[in-house]
């Protein structure tokens, strides 16, 4: 940047011919992702936006006819939509449990126990498991008869503790949450490890000399330095949780017999918003209604991301 003026002139002269070629190269490279975004994000966004105000047969764009907000009336008077939002928020809030586990475990790991490396390797394994395998393995474990969970429960609390995980609505939600919580903390543990490692050790030494208790050390030194990570994990976790589909749908399809009707679990208790959208779009071939629900979720998540971005910027600057 701060080159001597004479040198700069000579360099510029040298570059003059190549400059345009370099710029064209840059424009091409930069435009490819933007073209992709326009073709496969903006265009579908626009189509689904328009489709909200129309009636459409099957997936045929040429059959679109203006219907004076009729789709909105239908969707927003559908009780299932509100129920699905509630279910989604419930499942997304399992992120708090995952985060607590991740924080606790990485706090223990920061004490540098024996076998720390092996523990770290093990803790991350669930995170890379596919949702298909994860859902199926937990369904096997939740089987009312030969499932290990009921075996452990009845072993401790007696035969009365046998839970029918697939037909009891409350148990069904717990089953999904347990499955999600099994998988989720791995990411948090890795992220927290980096945060714990980044804490300046001289702060601890200083506080030890001052005779601070372990509890005080945690709240005064460790916590402030891992707070940004916590916030980041919480927000990204909730944003991902609002889009819960895979595990909830796999449970609905395979764990519950009436799945072909689009019912997700007993009393439709496993119906997340994305499953609601998926049913509207693929089971009833109703893209306009699916679009209305999609746009609602879109706006909710957009607001969450913006809040995340703004607050994070403030936190990092502080």
């Amino acid at each position: 940047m701060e080159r001597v003026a004479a040198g700069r002139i000579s360099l510029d002269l040298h570059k003059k011919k190549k400059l345009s070629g370099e710029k064209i190269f840059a424009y091409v490279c930069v435009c490819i992702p933007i073209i992709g975004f326009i073709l496969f994000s903006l265009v579908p966004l626009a189509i689904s936006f328009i489709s909200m105000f129309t009636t459409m047969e099957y997936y045929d764009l040429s059959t679109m006819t203006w219907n004076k907000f009729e789709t909105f009336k239908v969707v927003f008077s559908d009780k299932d939509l509100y129920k699905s939002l509630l279910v989604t928020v419930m499942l997304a809030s399992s992120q708090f449990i995952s985060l607590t586990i991740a924080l606790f475990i990485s706090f223990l790991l920061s004490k540098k126990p024996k076998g720390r490396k092996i523990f770290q390797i093990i803790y991350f394994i669930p995170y890379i498991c596919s949702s298909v395998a994860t859902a199926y393995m937990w369904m096997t474990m939740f089987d009312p008869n030969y499932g290990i969970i009921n075996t452990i429960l009845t072993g401790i609390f007696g035969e009365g503790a046998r839970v029918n995980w697939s037909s009891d609505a409350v148990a069904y939600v717990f089953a999904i949450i347990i499955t999600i919580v099994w998988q989720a903390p791995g990411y948090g543990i890795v992220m927290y490890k980096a945060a714990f490692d980044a804490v300046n050790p001289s702060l601890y030494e200083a506080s030890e000399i001052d005779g601070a208790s372990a509890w005080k050390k945690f709240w005064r030194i460790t916590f402030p330095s891992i707070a940004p990570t916590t916030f980041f994990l919480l927000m990204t976790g909730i944003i991902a949780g609002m889009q819960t589909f895979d595990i909830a749908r796999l449970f609905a399809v395979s764990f519950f017999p009436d799945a072909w009707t689009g019912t997700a679990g007993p009393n439709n208790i496993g119906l997340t918003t994305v499953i609601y959208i998926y049913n509207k779009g693929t089971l009833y071939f109703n893209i306009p209604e699916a679009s209305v629900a999609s746009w609602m979720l879109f706006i909710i998540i957009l607001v969450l991301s913006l809040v995340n971005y703004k607050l994070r910027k403030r936190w990092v600057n502080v």
Partner: protein
Amino acid sequence: MKAFKSIVGSSESIHDLSPRVASYKEVKERRSRRTTGIIGKIVVFALLLLYAVCLMLPFYVLFVTSITPYQELMGSMSFIWWPEEVTWDAFTPFISTDNILADDIGIPILHGFFNTLWSTLLTTIVSLFVSGLAAYSYSKIRFRGKEALFMFQLATMMIPMATMTVPSLIWYETLGWTHSWFPVIIPGLFGGATTIFFLRSYMSSVPNETLEAAKIDGLGSFRIFLRIVLPQTIPAFIAQFIFAFVGGYNNYMGPLLYLSDNPQNYTLQLVVTELRTFYNQPGQVCASCLIALIPLIIVYIIFQRFFIEGISVGGGRE
């Protein structure tokens, strides 16, 4: 009282450092502190071990259920920790041509694995390359409108396109792409905003002087990227590759929407879910999950250092 304690505390820590004959009381105190330290260590280790066992338990259940005969499983009212008679029959439909879809796909797991591998590698590598080129242009080349384009690219990160997966169906239907690989592969070839953002911040560490020198030597921009920038930022590329590869390997919703009507196009996850409907027996389900999980877990254990580093480097930056 508090002040007194803190004085005692600080004097103690000074005494710890100074070579001085310790009094009986001090020796006793120090010894008790050491034993609580050992107990603490054991507690930490035990808790970590307990968590590891909880996380690994589902894999044991998968394995045992897959080797237990169907009759024994169905007749049981509790979990079978080890079967009376071990059978490997549950694995045969997946690893041999002795299955219901053999005419279409031969050995299902191999077929699914091959489909998953080529589609994931193609999108991951092309997308990474395209993102890398864009990141290089944003980071190292000066051109008009760069700031505006970058802000636009950054803004695309905020858009939760995942909520639009179902409404996007009509766009692909209009293009005539449904029931084909195109909707799963083509949108992924244009690079991703998050990847560009991450690679760009990583590339800023490549010294400009090296690039200037290469330019004077007459190297074109593409060659500079290939020969200088790419080799120097390879850890960032590996991190992003791992992210994308695991995501592609485990992808469920995309193949479910577009590929589930033709056995020829089954990905690994679809093989597992679709064959479940044919062989609705716990042994087979567990066997297929196990076969689908093992390759990625082996890859993870071999390259776990890259996984964990990649995540803690890549995730923290959003």
